[in-house]
């Protein structure tokens, strides 16, 4: 990869060590993806905010990095571990470490958005704009449905793009990679958002390319789209899908394949807690939840994860209080994935409609999961 003179200087550490490490990261990715050069990005969205995801190693790195590194472009950040207004029984040591991480990002100049759905919270740039999104559901959503261009970035590559304003020109930033070679066919009708999640998980796991064609889907509502994008981003390296395509190779996602994903991820029939929100719920989903639970009460504890911005909007139009009447409990600035609210000590199993949530609850929180769609959850667990 060719670097401009000032990029070479930054890589050699002539400005400062933080910037040099950012360029080291960009060069490694450039080599990995056969990039010829670095190009500007307009917006970086960084993951690795929740203490449960980056741990003490990450925390200490960011503390040092942020003493000199400053954002060069608009920078937003992923959910953290907890909602400051509802610390529940989250340990003081977790809170302290979480605040340390949050202040490192703020010291760099990042917006304290604590959201994994930046596409629902912020104004969107024009189609074709180069961004660097580390949150995988946001990367897939932005490439596939918003016409933005990002690779499926890592936490560190988006961080490097944030402080340099640059990214290697490669992979999904080039038209060629955005044309899928493999398509997924389906031979049954999808009923719920969960079916889209199962499809996404299957597609991400089956296809090693950066882009996959999904045949037999022609349009998606927001809830289906978020379930699909989050699941694609979870199981593999795929960062984009298209509606259909001219791909020659076809893979079948039939009922048998859907069941096999269910068998892998849904490991319990029932549980004592429901978590909704991975990705964090948007206004559409909150509206649906309010409708499904109107005049009813949850029979189990139900946590609803959403961004602070969406929650504030939901308060304004009376939506938040409708949902709270059902007994559901909001947690802002955080998300199902690696949440410290759900631990093995407190719960054996969790009910969720999120395939992505199920994956991390099981692999990272080490609890069992009962995967059910939102309507079934509302039917079975409210009265």
């Amino acid at each position, binding site marked *: 990869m060719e670097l401009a003179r000032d990029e070479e200087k930054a890589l050699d550490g002539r400005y400062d060590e933080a910037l040099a490490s950012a360029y080291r990261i960009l060069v490694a990715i450039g080599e990995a993806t056969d990039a010829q050069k670095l190009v500007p990005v307009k917006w970086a969205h960084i993951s*690795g905010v929740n203490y449960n995801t*980056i741990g003490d190693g990450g925390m200490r790195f960011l503390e040092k990095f942020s003493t000199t590194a400053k954002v060069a472009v608009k920078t937003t950040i992923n959910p953290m571990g907890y909602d400051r207004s509802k610390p529940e029984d989250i340990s003081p040591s977790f809170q302290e470490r979480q605040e340390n991480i949050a202040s490192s990002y703020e010291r760099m100049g990042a917006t304290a958005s604590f959201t994994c759905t930046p596409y629902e919270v912020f104004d969107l740039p024009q189609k074709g704009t180069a961004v660097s999104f580390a949150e995988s559901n946001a990367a897939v959503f932005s490439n596939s449905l918003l016409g933005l261009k990002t690779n499926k970035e890592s936490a560190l590559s988006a961080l490097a793009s944030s402080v340099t304003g640059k990214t290697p020109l490669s992979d999904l930033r080039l038209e060629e990679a955005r044309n899928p070679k493999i398509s997924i066919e389906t031979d049954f009708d999808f009923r719920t958002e969960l079916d889209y999640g199962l499809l996404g998980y299957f597609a991400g796991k089956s296809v090693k390319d950066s882009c996959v064609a999904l045949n037999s889907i022609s349009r998606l509502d927001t809830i289906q789209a978020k379930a699909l994008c989050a699941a694609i981003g979870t199981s593999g390296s795929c960062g984009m899908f298209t509606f259909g395509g001219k791909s020659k190779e076809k893979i079948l996602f039939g009922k048998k394949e859907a069941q096999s994903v269910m068998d892998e991820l849904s490991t319990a029939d029932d549980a004592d807690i429901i978590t909704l929100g991975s990705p964090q719920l948007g206004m559409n989903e909150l509206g649906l939840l309010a409708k499904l639970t109107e005049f009813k009460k949850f029979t189990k504890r139900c946590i609803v994860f959403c961004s602070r911005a969406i929650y504030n909007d939901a308060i304004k139009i009376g939506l938040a209080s409708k949902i709270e009447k059902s007994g559901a409990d909001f947690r802002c600035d955080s998300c199902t994935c690696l949440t410290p609210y759900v631990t093995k000590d407190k719960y054996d199993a969790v009910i969720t409609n999120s395939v992505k949530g199920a994956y991390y609850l099981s692999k990272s929180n080490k609890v069992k999961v009962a995967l059910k769609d939102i309507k079934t959850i509302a039917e079975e667990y409210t009265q």
Partner: protein
Amino acid sequence: MIISNCRRIVGGTGEGKTLVTKQPINFLAMVNAKSGTITDPLHELHDKSLKGSVLILPYAIGSSVGAYAIYSLKEYGNAPSAVVCSKVDITTASGCALAEIPVVDLPDGTPISILKQGLKARVEADARRIVVEFS
């Protein structure tokens, strides 16, 4: 055996025993940085330690935060000495770049199965090659 014409992703030299898997690794969900082991019972490297190994995998999958997990392995002294991928991904490249762990890609068409488990190997990323000694 020498495998030459590898792609250099992160420079440097690292040596250790080969730890080979045909299954991708999700560094966030499957690796415990403090113990340096693979914690997923469904993974073929379950309970194996990455420390000091020449880790050979197809590529990493899953969360973008996996890059920090690689960095944390280094922080805890449990990192592999070098990493070899069949097709390196952004998570592995960026995590190893920050942790200064040498990384190469196998040349196109070279199957992972060419590398056997537990052999002494040296990855010379700048020379774009892997030297494997039969014991």
